[in-house]
């Protein structure tokens, strides 16, 4: 069965929308236009190593890390509940995880703007029960909340899909041999679910580290992340060279972390997302 031609449209797509743009990014990042024409330069990369930009990068990595950890802590138990056979309202719960994803991402983030504001729903409730109003919007917490809220399903679903595939007889065997539920989790369920955890982490960390909408809307423009920096170079200053260099550095960082992840995955003999 040779059906290679089915892949042709995808190959064309790949070349047009992934390969060529990547080449363009590389090209822009190492050139600049002068009076003598286009010349080779590394100044865009050099500029990145100024303390201010390094700080932006570190902040992006840090905020994404925090949100990934929170997603994992919230998402893993949820995935376990979803995967357990005993839970009766499982279907409803899965639907509740998936439904928010049907709505536009930007719209959901805008909704948080009105929920968190000083005269917003949450603060009205807090003051109704007699507590002082809190400042919930335009701080680091709001940015992390936005990331966790938007990316949580990407953590839950991969873990869930791995958990339901675990052979129940292994767990039963462990129980027969006298393992209590804590030991079963530590020695069997958790190790077997690692591929799902790894792809969950990747799927949350990558969009979190590159987001620019969440930090601008919920952070009130005070938490410049690497994504904001790139957006600013392309849309505002027209410094495509510097913007491309930033994007390239970001891509290299992501590739690097994915390589570490996939190595880890192989050691555990799991089949993850990548």
């Amino acid at each position, binding site marked *: 069965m040779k059906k290679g031609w089915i892949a042709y449209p995808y190959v064309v797509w790949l070349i047009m929308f992934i390969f060529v743009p990547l080449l363009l990014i590389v090209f822009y990042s190492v050139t600049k236009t002068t009076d003598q024409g286009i010349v080779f330069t590394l100044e865009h990369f050099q500029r990145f190593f100024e303390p201010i930009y390094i700080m932006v990068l570190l902040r992006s990595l840090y905020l994404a890390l925090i949100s990934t950890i929170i997603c994992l802590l919230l998402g893993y138990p949820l995935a376990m509940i979803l995967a357990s056979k005993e839970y009766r309202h499982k279907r409803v719960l899965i639907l509740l995880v998936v439904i928010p994803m049907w709505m536009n991402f930007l719209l959901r983030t805008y909704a948080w703007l009105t929920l968190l504001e000083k005269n917003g729903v949450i603060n009205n409730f807090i003051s109704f029960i007699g507590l002082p109003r809190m400042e919930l919007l335009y701080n680091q917490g709001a940015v992390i909340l936005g990331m966790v809220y938007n990316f949580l399903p990407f953590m839950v679903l991969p873990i869930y899909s791995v958990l339901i595939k675990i052979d129940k007889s292994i767990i039963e065997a462990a129980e027969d041999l006298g393992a209590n539920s804590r030991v079963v989790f530590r020695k069997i369920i958790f190790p077997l679910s690692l591929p799902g955890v790894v792809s969950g982490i990747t799927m949350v960390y990558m969009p979190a580290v590159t987001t620019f909408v969440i930090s601008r809307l919920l952070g009130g423009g005070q938490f410049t992340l690497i994504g904001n920096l790139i957006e600013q*170079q392309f849309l505002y200053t027209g410094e495509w060279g510097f913007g491309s260099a930033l994007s390239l550095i970001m891509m290299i960082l992501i590739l690097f972390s994915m390589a570490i992840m996939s190595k880890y995955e192989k050691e555990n003999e799991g089949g993850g997302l990548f």
Partner: protein
Amino acid sequence: MKKNLRVKFTLLLAVSLISILLLSGCGKSYDATLRVYNWGDYMDKSVITDFEKEYNIKVIYSTFTTNEDMYVSLKSGGSTYDVVFPSEYMVKRMINEDMLHKINMDNIPNFKYIDDRFKNPPWDPNNEYSVPYFWGTLGIVYNKTMVDDPVDSWEILWNEKYERQILMLDSQRDSIGLTLQMLGYSMNTRNLDELEEAKQKLIEQKPLVLAYVGDEVKDKMVGGEAALAVVWSGEAVAMKWENPDLEYVIPKEGGNLWFDCAVIPKSSKNKEAAELFINYLCDPEIAFRNTDYIGYSTPNTETMKMLDEELLNDIAAYPSDEDIANAEVFDDVSDALELYDRIWTEIKAK
């Protein structure tokens, strides 16, 4: 079997392509197409449909959010437009970079309705390239129930009493510009020391700022989320309609005066239709509909006669000559843009 499938696939593709072509050919046929590129929510949509009906020209209308946004998409050459609406400093930059067609003023008879003060402006001295569309000022809008100090200067934005109650504009030129003006410098400076001083001042202000916002400022001020905000006058008019506690002030340092103009980029393929459209927009009746819809200040003298007395006396909408005597107009500083960007990034990333 495999071959059969391929034939079927090709046929399917062909049929769908043909039907798309046929469908797009259906409907009303127009004599010409006009591509208009304007700020978001900056024109009454019914004006466009009326223009289409009257001249049998199809209008493709798209929008942008900042001058720079628009400039980049024109400069990159990916898109062609016939009429674009940049602000004054961007008009100058585009003239300098030879991006604009000269407008044939014989085709714009309605230009006579434009107030003389807006003719032959510094950015287009012989009025060859641009026709003013709307104008306004940059100032402070404040909530009377939350602010008890007199608001007459940019200095109030540095008053610690209003910690975390101040909204700044997430716009490099405007925020750095107003700081420069407060320090007694020109809003258009390229002087490193002056810019450095403004940067320090803005970093000092950062703990007092609730957020650096864009379009959200309207909702936030109307909802009483903040006490003070830097806004463009047209927005202030609309905000005051919705929340009477709000008041608009042009600071005594002068403030900034801005003009959005209609221009025809070099990439235009239909200059005559573009001129027809610009002329249509200068028609007093049409200009009134746009003014009524978006609430910004019109440069059209005949249109002004149709407006409410109350609006004409509103300093946010139609400031008197004294109010704007010291106001500064932005100049093109494209050679210092990287510096501005670096400063702004440093402030926001601190």
